[in-house]
């Protein structure tokens, strides 16, 4: 009897709990709507990779919006794959809560082809193109239409020690020869580059191929070309890996390892992004005064090296319900003023040429002239909607660089890349 009463009471309270839960469920959308509506003010959701002081840029743009809309910064995961996956998954489901998207320069064609980002036209387009460097702008286009506004760019430089090397080498052959001489003389001689199986290896290879005047994919991204220059690029990469002056941990080196290796003092050269300049001042102050930069080495002496462009572009989601405000937000976040702030505080090189001439830039970017020189004659990674697959295959096939057989590897790349851009093959 007592047992029955207890069960009865239990049932009532459970029913009450269910009722409460149902009510909560029913109310949830209303509460959520309140949150995003902000009492009538439009919210513009920006999704961007972690950048320490980006919130301040957002705050400034919020001040400019003067209450017409409110920009909310949503920080994406730190790794590029994580960023892309989150956006892709939500866009594929038609999520209307994303407005402005921070895209790595290699994703624009993919998002554009899939119809996830809106084309830039008219006044917005003119504003995004005004004063913007041609190289970064090319990464924001797909099929002759503009789909994003370049926010920041990046290029690798050749960094060397001027206490070991008097004249920076112009080509890979010169650099390897100089390194071998240093090695014979028993001095620090290693050449460091990003040779691990990841995007950095693709960047390295793309830089060499572009410098050799070669092409990996056709201009429209529809065909795997792998021409003579691309084969030559494979030879240069293999010769570097087997030269004896590459670091023993080449196949394990990403940007961070490369920089730490240089700071340790066994190397004479490294190919790396400009962040290493500030890192060197902190990591090895004794070596820092001898830490100099030059243009990325070429393949032939008469053609200077072309560096691969990195960086981020801002795009507006096709599913955004506030297109006009989203475009305005994107333009504000990448305005000359914002770019200058980010360049100085977060170390990301600007895409607007005039920003480089600002006096404050001199201290943070002593190498800005060289960055600008490379940006005006750059290498763009192959533009194709299937870049993600193409890149995975390239880093896989090129690993380890010492095992490359130029002709055979080129043939394999051509076959597998063709399958990848037709979305037929298997991605490893």
């Amino acid at each position, binding site marked *: 009897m007592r047992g029955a009463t207890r069960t009865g009471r239990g049932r009532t309270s459970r029913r009450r709990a269910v009722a409460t839960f149902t009510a909560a469920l029913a109310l949830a959308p209303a509460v959520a709507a309140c949150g995003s509506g902000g009492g009538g003010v439009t919210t513009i959701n920006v999704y961007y990779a972690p950048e320490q002081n980006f919130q301040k840029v957002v705050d400034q743009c919020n001040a400019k919006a003067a209450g017409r809309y409110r920009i909310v910064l949503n920080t994406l995961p730190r790794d590029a794959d994580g960023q892309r*996956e989150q956006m892709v998954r939500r866009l594929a489901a038609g999520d209307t809560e994303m407005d402005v998207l921070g895209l790595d320069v290699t994703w624009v064609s993919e998002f554009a082809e*899939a119809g996830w980002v809106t084309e830039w036209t008219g006044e917005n387009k003119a504003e995004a193109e005004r004063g913007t460097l041609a190289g970064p702008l090319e990464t924001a286009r797909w099929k002759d239409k503009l789909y994003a506004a370049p926010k920041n760019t990046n290029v690798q430089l050749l960094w060397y020690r001027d206490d070991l090397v008097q004249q920076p080498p112009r080509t890979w052959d010169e650099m390897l020869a100089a390194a071998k001489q240093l090695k014979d003389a028993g001095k620090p001689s290693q050449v460091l580059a990003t040779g691990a199986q990841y995007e950095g290896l693709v960047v390295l290879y793309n830089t060499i191929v572009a410098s050799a005047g070669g092409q990996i994919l056709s201009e429209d991204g529809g065909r795997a070309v792998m021409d003579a220059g691309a084969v030559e690029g494979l030879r240069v990469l293999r010769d570097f890996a087997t030269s004896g002056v590459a670091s023993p941990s080449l196949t394990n080196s990403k940007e961070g390892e490369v920089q730490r290796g240089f700071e340790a003092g066994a190397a004479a050269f490294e190919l790396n992004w400009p962040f290493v300049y500030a890192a060197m001042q902190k990591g090895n102050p004794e070596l820092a005064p001898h830490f100099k930069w030059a243009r990325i080495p070429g393949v032939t002496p008469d053609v200077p090296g072309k560096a691969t462009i990195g960086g981020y572009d801002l795009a507006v989601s096709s599913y955004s319900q506030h297109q006009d405000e989203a475009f305005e937000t994107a333009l504000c976040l990448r305005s000359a003023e914002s770019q200058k702030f980010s360049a100085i505080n977060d170390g990301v090189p600007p895409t607007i040429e005039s920003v480089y001439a600002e006096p404050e830039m001199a201290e943070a970017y002593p190498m800005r002239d060289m960055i600008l020189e490379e940006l005006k004659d750059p290498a763009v990674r192959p533009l194709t909607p299937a870049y993600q*697959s193409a890149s*995975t295959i390239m880093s896989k096939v090129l690993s380890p660089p010492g095992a490359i057989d130029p002709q055979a590897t080129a043939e394999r790349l051509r076959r597998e890349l063709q399958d990848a851009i037709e979305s037929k093959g298997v*991605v*490893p």
Partner: protein
Amino acid sequence: MSEASQLSAENVAGASATARGVRGGSAGSTGSARRAKPVLSEGKKAERRLGLLLCAPAALVMIAVTGWPIIYSVWLSLQRFDLRFPDQREFVGLDNYITVLSSPYWWTAFGVTALLTVVSVVLELVLGMALALIMHRTIVGRGLVRTVALIPYGIVTVVAAFSWYYAWTPGTGYLANLVGPDTALLTERLPALAIIVSAEVWKTTPFMALLLMAGLALVPDDLLKAAAMDGASAWQRFTRVMVPVMKPAILVALLFRTLDAFRIFDNIFVLTSGAQDTASVSMQTYNNLIKGLNLGVGSTMSVLIFITVAIIAFVFVKVFGTAAPGSDQGGRR
């Protein structure tokens, strides 16, 4: 019997019931119902109709939540369907299967998965048995011993994987520092696979032990005492008395773990993300389906995994029905 072992005993019973269902193909509640089929009385028929009606809602829900996704995957696997090229969707028949089955990447991943499965399940069985015996025989602090042994199983796999990952990170990880200052074991193939196996084993041995302990509970003490009286050594008692009696429990534990191990994903995703040919088939499916947005090829891979898992289960269940004494009531009669 403690709550934990009771729980796992139910698990075992449930699993062998499922196994019987799969094997027999009919959902008869007991073995005798099958034989009594032709002579059903009116009352029995009505009872049976009611039973079916009562089952119907559950069956419908099952079809909706498991049947439909499987059918949809099969349908997707027959198409060229890539989210990056939404306009080029078309029916391609078995092309995707030819692509995947002729890809060296797929077979590499398949080999890695099979290797990881066999090695980790064998290790788990040996260690799990030892742990089960310890937990079963403990006299003092029983609850404490069992709780402590079960801690790894209670930790979310991704969290555990991250703690392994950081432990093996050169420079900051304590395990990496034990091995040497400049070694990055996770970037070399065989050491990375060994680390993945150890993470798997550490994580799931308690689960194995739990299932085996339920089996141990089935071994009558009298039998062991009698064997001891007859002069059987401890090892003989273990191999000649305990293992045969426990066999159904061991097989269920092996089946569960093999199916789980074959679908390994989280540990690899966190520890190596599949670099240096350490990707499992699930990892590769993820790369093609979620990262590559290729719904056609990705679905083909998930269908192939589904088929493989079904084959493993089928083989195990066959082994069950024939070789395990006392595993099936019908088999004993």
